[in-house]
């Protein structure tokens, strides 16, 4: 494996990490609308991700930075091509980030309610838009010989991309619910599990629709079938297992299954893309690949040394922070 392939893998790992970690943050944010009966419950729910969400979001920023450093053309084509979707992603992330900080600052029902809506939409919009983004990349976008993408409305918004967006959103929703079953107690925990049991079927239905459309719209089954087909099978198994574990109240295993589902889903997308990073719908000659979009070998070597040195520390102290806050949030704990 050369450095170009390694960096594709590293970026895939960063996005897998982002969707696994920030996936449950988004899911918890979405759940606040469906699960919380009152302000206290909403606070408990937000509190479950309180110490973590900011660091989880950094996986996205690092993914973006890594794309810039390792594949400048990918960075340039994707961010300029998806200009308007990214404006909305950014607005959502801006709102959500400050809403966590601001919502409890003023003791007024209207104030809190306003920021709660920002938390909800700020958690709902990004997974949806990222789903749209990745599915449309998979399908191919109008990228010309100069690597510039000139896309129209229907390139962004079509049945396939919307299905992809909805699927990713539901997967995050489920992931958040199963995270809540691990981090809360009593009634809230039971209701999280009960809702998760329903949402898991929704997730499976969405996945079936998404995979079916992918068969029609992309080369996901032909480009690297020996890898992607077993993975797609594994995704379905993961969510069936999640449903089973939720029924048996094995919350830890349910969370692991839902996490495995997300990890596999993101991995399938990257596996079927490789070695392309952006697919051109105009001509396969205009595809951006890990070779023609990459930085020079020197840059890649430097970045590899830096990443290999730093990543273990980053993962180490993030795990430590989860260990420090391993206790469930019950609303009676004075230290919380």
């Amino acid at each position, binding site marked *: 494996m050369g450095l170009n392939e390694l960096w594709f893998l590293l970026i895939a790992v960063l996005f897998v990490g982002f969707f696994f970690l920030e996936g449950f943050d988004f899911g918890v944010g979405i759940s606040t609308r469906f699960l919380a009966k009152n302000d206290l419950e909403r606070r408990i729910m937000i509190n479950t991700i309180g110490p973590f969400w900011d660091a989880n979001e950094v996986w996205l920023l*690092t993914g973006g930075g*890594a794309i810039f450093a390792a594949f400048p053309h990918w*960075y340039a084509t994707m*961010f300029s091509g998806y*200009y308007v979707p990214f404006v909305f992603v950014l607005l959502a992330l801006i709102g959500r*980030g400050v809403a966590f900080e601001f919502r409890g600052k003023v003791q007024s029902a209207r104030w809190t309610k306003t920021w709660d809506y920002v938390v909800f939409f700020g958690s709902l919009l990004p997974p949806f838009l990222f789903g749209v983004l990745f599915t449309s990349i998979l399908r191919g976008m109008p990228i010309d010989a100069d690597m510039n993408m000139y896309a129209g409305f229907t390139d962004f918004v079509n049945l396939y991309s919307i299905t992809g967006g909805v699927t990713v959103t539901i997967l995050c929703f489920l992931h958040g619910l199963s995270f809540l079953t691990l981090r809360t107690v009593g009634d809230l925990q039971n209701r999280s599990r009960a809702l998760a049991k329903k949402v898991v079927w929704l997730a499976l239905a969405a996945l079936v629709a998404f995979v079916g459309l992918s068969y029609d719209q992309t080369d996901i089954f032909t480009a690297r079938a020996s890898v992607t087909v077993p993975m797609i099978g594994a995704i379905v198994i993961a969510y069936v297992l999640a449903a089973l574990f939720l029924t048996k109240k094995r919350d830890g295993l349910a969370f692991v299954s839902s996490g495995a589902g997300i990890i596999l889903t993101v991995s399938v997308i990257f596996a079927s893309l490789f070695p392309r990073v952006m697919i051109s719908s105009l001509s396969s000659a205009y595809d951006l690949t890990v070779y023609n979009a990459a930085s020079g070998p020197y840059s890649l070597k430097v*970045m590899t040394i830096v990443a290999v040195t730093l990543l273990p520390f*980053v993962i180490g102290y993030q795990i430590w922070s989860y260990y420090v806050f391993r206790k469930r949030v019950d609303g009676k704990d*004075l230290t919380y």
Partner: protein
Amino acid sequence: MDELFLARLQFGSTTIFHFLFVPLSIGLVFLVALMETHYVLKGDERYKKLAKFWGHLFLINFAVGVVTGIIQEFQFGMNWSDYSRFVGDVFGAPLAIEALLAFFMESTFIGLWIFGWDRLSPKVHLACIWLVSLGTMMSALWILAANSFMQEPVGFVMNNGRAEMNDFFALLTNPQLAVEFPHVIFGALATGAFFIGGVSAFKILKGQEVDLFKKSFNLAMTVALISGLAIAFSGHAQAKHLMESQPMKMAASEALWEDSGDPAAWTAFAWIDSENQENSFEINIPFALSYLAYEKFQGDVPGMKTLQAEYEATYGEGNYIPPVKTTFWSFRIMVGAGMVMIFASLLGLYFSYRETLAQQKWFLRAMVALISFPFIANSAGWIMTEVGRQPWTVFGLMTTSASISPNVSTASLLLSLIAFSGAYLILAIVLVYLFIREIKKGVEHHEAAPDQKAGDPFDQEVYL
């Protein structure tokens, strides 16, 4: 309206807005860490209370700094895709390292710090805030390494029409970075110090928790004075370096159309006529520019017309003179504000030493107004640096007009400009509102009795 104008307007305004919060965060977290250190080492509970109070203000500010920073990470690609293609090989690395090294550290340890008061031992908790402080400074180091490349490209070769990195350590030992980094960091510490100094002055003026706020005032003014002097020295080093790296920026910041002659006088005030390339009125201080540029009272400084001819010979036809009035006046605003800050911190320490601070009502009022000065100086400094580099994005390699995304339409740009401006306006209003509320509440409020927190996991102590 043309796309280049809109893209520049958006980048300039979002960056200036972002950089209101960044230096305040860097400064505040450093001072909070000092306060907590005092508490942990000496066991003085008052410093714990102070660390929490200033910590609350820091966290509000940090949240806004973080979210406005997300845009920064993406908008090179969104608005400046041709720039990103051209320099990504060199420029992307420091950005990725910034995220990997600094953002992860800041965000993880800030979570541990906020939620960990009762879960971690005092020493581990203290280590967390110092790691956040270290993270903010590392973040500054890497983003400034990237910016220094734009001012003074080093460590690269041209290959297939792109700049490719060939010496990573040259990026880190860029002489521009050596003068720019200390200048920015001490500017940030001064920003935090003047914020704490000004708010403390306000509370002392109101007669609220005077003893506590005198402590934070003293600490702030000590940091302010040290930083102020360090800013002046590193700023001077930067000016001297500018003579070698970007003499055109130097000439523009002095509104020097013709060569200065030897020795060079420093222009304190000029009525600039950019169209006719002359100044109709000037107030000059003899010898001063020679000193600024060379640290001696002799030496000729080349004027813009000479440099324009030189650049045309090197880079081909074009206008290489940046907007002169903006560069000239932003430099003077920055230097003026910096001088006032040094003077004010000296005076503040003097009054503290004589223990007459609480009686100096006029001075305390002035300190409240002076909260704005570091923000003005920071913004003016960056305007001078970035506008003075025009027409280049990467000096000598790529022009701003060649950097833009060719596929982003005017309509998209208008949408993003309106959306971001609207969001930032709301953020600014809410931030100021919350600052005022927190400041009015004072220190002791945050030490609310534990029973009030019972059953409410998201109350004061926890998520702030």
